[in-house]
């Protein structure tokens, strides 16, 4: 069975900045089969070294603007690298995984637009609603994938 990894990241002391972690924690509570969940304050290069066992990696983050919930899939490698920002982006993490470690992963990035980034340990009401929807979206994706694999496995047997 192929495995998947969810990484939720952000600062849980800066209100909606922590929405990625909130979503990851709630997905972990669902105990989805073959899905591992990780949380971190920010992305860092060594995360890519852990991608080996996974064929799907989902990264969940907050955004300061854009759609309330957005999903990007089949993300191509970045055409231009930034002049090296300390904050590793999902695209660059994928690139490290591919080019340094030869891990081929399907990366999806879910972002939830935040409304406040001030000090605070709770999500604002609208963002909590978006976060709950995102948990459902990701869980549904995994359930569909799992069902397809079960069907394929049944036919092969």
């Amino acid at each position, binding site marked *: 069975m192929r495995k998947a990894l969810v990484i939720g990241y952000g600062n*849980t002391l800066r209100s909606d900045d922590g929405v990625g972690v909130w979503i990851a924690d709630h997905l972990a509570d669902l105990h989805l089969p073959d899905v591992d969940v990780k949380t971190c304050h920010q992305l860092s*290069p060594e995360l890519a070294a852990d991608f080996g066992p996974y064929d799907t990696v989902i990264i969940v983050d907050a955004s300061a603007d854009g759609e309330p919930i957005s999903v990007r899939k089949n993300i191509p490698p970045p055409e231009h690298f930034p*002049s090296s920002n*300390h904050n590793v982006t999902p695209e660059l993490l994928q690139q490290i995984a591919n*080019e340094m470690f030869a891990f081929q992963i399907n990366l999806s990035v879910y972002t939830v637009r935040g409304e406040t980034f001030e000090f605070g340990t709770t999500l604002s009401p609208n963002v909590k609603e978006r976060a709950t929807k995102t948990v459902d979206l990701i869980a549904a994706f995994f359930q569909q994938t799992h069902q397809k694999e079960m069907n394929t496995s049944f036919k092969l047997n």
Partner: protein
Amino acid sequence: MSQTITISPVTRIEGHAKITIHLDDQGIVEDARFHVNEFRGFEKFCEGRLMSEMAGITSRICGICPTSHLITSAKAGDDILAIEIPETAEKLRRIITLAQWMQSHALSFFHLSSPDFLLGFDAEPGKRNIFGLLDQHKDFAKRGIRLRKFGQEIIEVLGGRKIHTPWAVAGGVREPFEASKKDYLLNWIPEAKETALLALSELKKIHSKFNKDIPNFGNFRSLFVGLVAKDGGLEYYDGLLRVMDAAGNTIADKIDPRRYREFFGEATEQWSYLKFPYYKPLGYPEGMYRVGPLARVNICDYIDTPLAEAERVMFKSLAGDRGVVNNSFYFHYARLIELLFSVEKIEMLLKDPAILGTHIRSKAEINRNEGVGASEAPRGTLFHHYWVNDDGVIQKVNLVIATAQNNLAMNRTVKQIAMRYVDGKKITEGILNRIEAGIRCYDPCLSCSTHAIGQMPLQVQLINSSNDIIDEIRR
């Protein structure tokens, strides 16, 4: 007409910052400033919280060195409880502190600074980064990632996989070390040691390549401050404060960190949110001092691991008759010596049977209304000072972070580089790169607490004396 050139934000430095270079009427650099625009506000945020929450809260100050805040916060808690923690807990705290050094130093060298060194300051900006190394230095870049991974493995084995778990608590640590993990971690040591030695070897080759740049990279006299062990050895977790001058004279020694406010003041400037700590007996700004790897390796009498000690002796030879190395470029060299030390010392501690003890926490009530914790974070000495009421509720907090203590020196470094390279007519990529590289010597951490709104492009503004932007470049 006098002009100001603004470089904002500085890339590859954690947090937000910009640099302004002030030109006089003749276009000659007369001043340069390193501005920090982000106001963190953690000290105020902590008021009213329970002391027991502080380790978990303050570890969120930084996404790169949360463990340093965790440990220093726990030490401030120890002081408030007025207790001595069990030997096992202290040794485990030491291991995780070193793991943090290893992680942070590896990121600084392999990912932030080595692109400058291996590809050159004048290389195309789009390629002068960790990914630009992949073509010719893939194994080198990969080793840096694995070294960070080793540090992370240690932190996760000790502190758990959840972010910011308050594993270190007032009185000790929450969980004992799992004996079954010892061999797993020890198996990493040969590779980690080889990588640290490789990095040192590469850096020493680089020194000759940049012999024209090095003399202008923060080469000035200042004090050096840090913790040293009671016998003068390199210290990272505990110890007493030592102050050394630019000629290598120890001007203050064996200072209990609790007395830090008697010796160090914090000045402010209108143009930056980052404070400007200084050594009080010399006043502001004459009391400028540097902390972090350069200071620590300068002020200690010895390092108690063999390979790092051999490197320290070579490092000190750079000082010649002066006794201390005054050039900030050699922060990188000192950082790699500490990286090697971390690997060696972690190995020693992992082999120490005392880490397997089960008495890991001493318990007590609030016995003092004030407590100070101090340790050596990757970037320098870190102080947490808490005032609590009898119920352990935080009344006031003072955090003196390492990066702030290097603030005066970072400004001096920027000015020196600008005076050497900026001719008042144009700023080339190479000049920008050198200024940024000068700041990166200190590996400053200005706060990465809100990453979602923290990703901005590099911006260069040319501003005249009327504050009009007359030119702007975005990278």
